[in-house]
């Protein structure tokens, strides 16, 4: 794997993770301020834009690599999203949740490698 392809895999993964964090923030805010406000619309639009970027980066990668090669990286999204939610959204990440997320990530990698 070249440095360039690694950067693209990382970019598609990070844009997906970032989209989830942005969408989570948008939806949480609706509990107080409802759906009809500009901030919510901008955040959801930002989340959808990030998911679209991730989608097309993945589509480009799929043209160059096998799905079985790319899918294990998707598995890593579970552990990365848990860490990002703890850092950026200040969610409580217990040891049990961390071990659970790690096992799910490892399991997905194993399912897609075999």
């Amino acid at each position, binding site marked *: 794997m070249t440095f360039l392809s690694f950067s693209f895999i990382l970019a598609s993964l990070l844009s997906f993770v970032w989209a989830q964090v942005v969408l989570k923030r948008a*939806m949480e805010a609706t509990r107080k301020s409802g759906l009809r406000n500009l901030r919510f619309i901008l955040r959801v639009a930002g989340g959808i834009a990030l998911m679209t970027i991730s989608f097309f980066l993945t589509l480009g990668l799929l043209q160059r690599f096998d799905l079985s090669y790319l899918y294990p990286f998707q598995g890593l999204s*579970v552990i990365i999203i848990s860490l990002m939610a703890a850092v950026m959204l200040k969610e409580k990440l217990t040891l049990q949740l961390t*071990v659970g997320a790690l096992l799910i990530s490892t399991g*997905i990698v194993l399912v897609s*490698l075999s």
Partner: protein
Amino acid sequence: MQDRPSGFGNPWLQLAVSVVCVLVSELLLKRGATDIADLSSAWSWTGINGLESPLVWLGIAFVIASFLSWLYVLKYIPLTIAFPLSRVVDILVPVSCWIFLGEFISIWRWCGIALVVIGLALVAKPVARIEERL
């Protein structure tokens, strides 16, 4: 999670709805794509010819439904719990392919499925405790 609605608005039910919609969409897209596969056409690489299949359109409807229920889930459930639980779809897809599409699952793949199940149980356990207290 204190002010969460009940009934069809229950976020845990919506998480299940979102997962089922993803699962159904994957199976429909696979069936639809195989039905109209024309590997000799250059356009087939873009996947756009997939839109000829009604099953693919139905699959797209399920993708949209899963996204809407996922947005609703995000309103109430922490991402550290909701996202790992949503990955149950990573074992439901291969198991459904095994049951409905007759695809083969290797020993290593079964081991991976087992790890995901244990991980899901670990993530779901604190949830069960939170629900008991409410």
